[in-house]
């Protein structure tokens, strides 16, 4: 049986890759993709804890499903905002969009 620690290490590595992507990528779409990657890493943790620690309660799985729902809503809204910013600014690079910086 796979130790729980190895699953947690996998999700930690994926989450830190997402952190790097959010901080370092320029394109807003790539940043959204990195956020999705982080949410997926969190989902691995929820499912691993649900399966390893409390197999008779499905709370972890229900939380993972809610994370998927919220992630879908977040992705739709974020990409809509990126489209709108692109139409107004002709760019999707986050370091060129400084409308709120006076």
């Amino acid at each position, binding site marked *: 049986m796979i130790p729980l620690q190895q699953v947690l290490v996998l999700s930690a590595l994926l989450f830190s890759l997402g952190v*790097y992507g959010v901080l370092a990528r*320029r394109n807003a779409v790539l940043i959204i993709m990195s956020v999705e990657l982080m949410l997926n890493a969190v989902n691995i943790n929820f499912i691993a804890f649900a399966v390893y620690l409390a197999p008779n309660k499905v709370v972890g799985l229900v939380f993972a499903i809610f994370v998927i729902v919220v992630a879908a*809503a977040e992705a739709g809204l974020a990409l809509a905002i990126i489209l709108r910013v692109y139409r107004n600014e002709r760019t999707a690079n986050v370091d060129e969009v400084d409308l709120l910086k006076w």
Partner: protein
Amino acid sequence: MSGVGPVSAFYVLAVLSIGSALMVMAARSIIHAVLFLVLFFVSLAAMFVLLSADFVAVAQLLVYAGAIGVLVVFAILLTPSREQRGMETKFVGPGLLAGAVVAGTVIFIAFNTNWPTASNDFPSTVDAIGQALLNRWALPFEIASVLLIAAMIGAIVIVGGRGVDLDPGAAGPSARLVRRER
């Protein structure tokens, strides 16, 4: 989830998911990054099956690999970037540092916590998830539907509106808000 088969499958899927996530971060072309992202989603769905969470795996395939993959591809096609200069901001160093700190902290916690392990005979999850969603978690379940409706309407309003039309004569950065396409 014991025996040689599942354990080796875990390592194969772990290498596949970490490799595709690395390629998402390292890809020079955005469309390649999206393809690696879909590969990442599919490998995570297989990982969920391996962790005996079948319903979540199917939801992952439908929502992430299907819907969000297509959504991101549309967003990329509608926001073409012309300039070919670097894909990274000046925060590459801090980004690497923050990622390393997060990974180190979580891995340290994972290995230094005494996890109470339970038996691993997981029941069929679809039945249990349905019972849980409609009994104990009925209110969050309904709120999620309201959230999805709000997000859908919000996305339609943001994208399909007539555009921001501030005063064209205004000086300063807000002048750039004037709608350019007619």
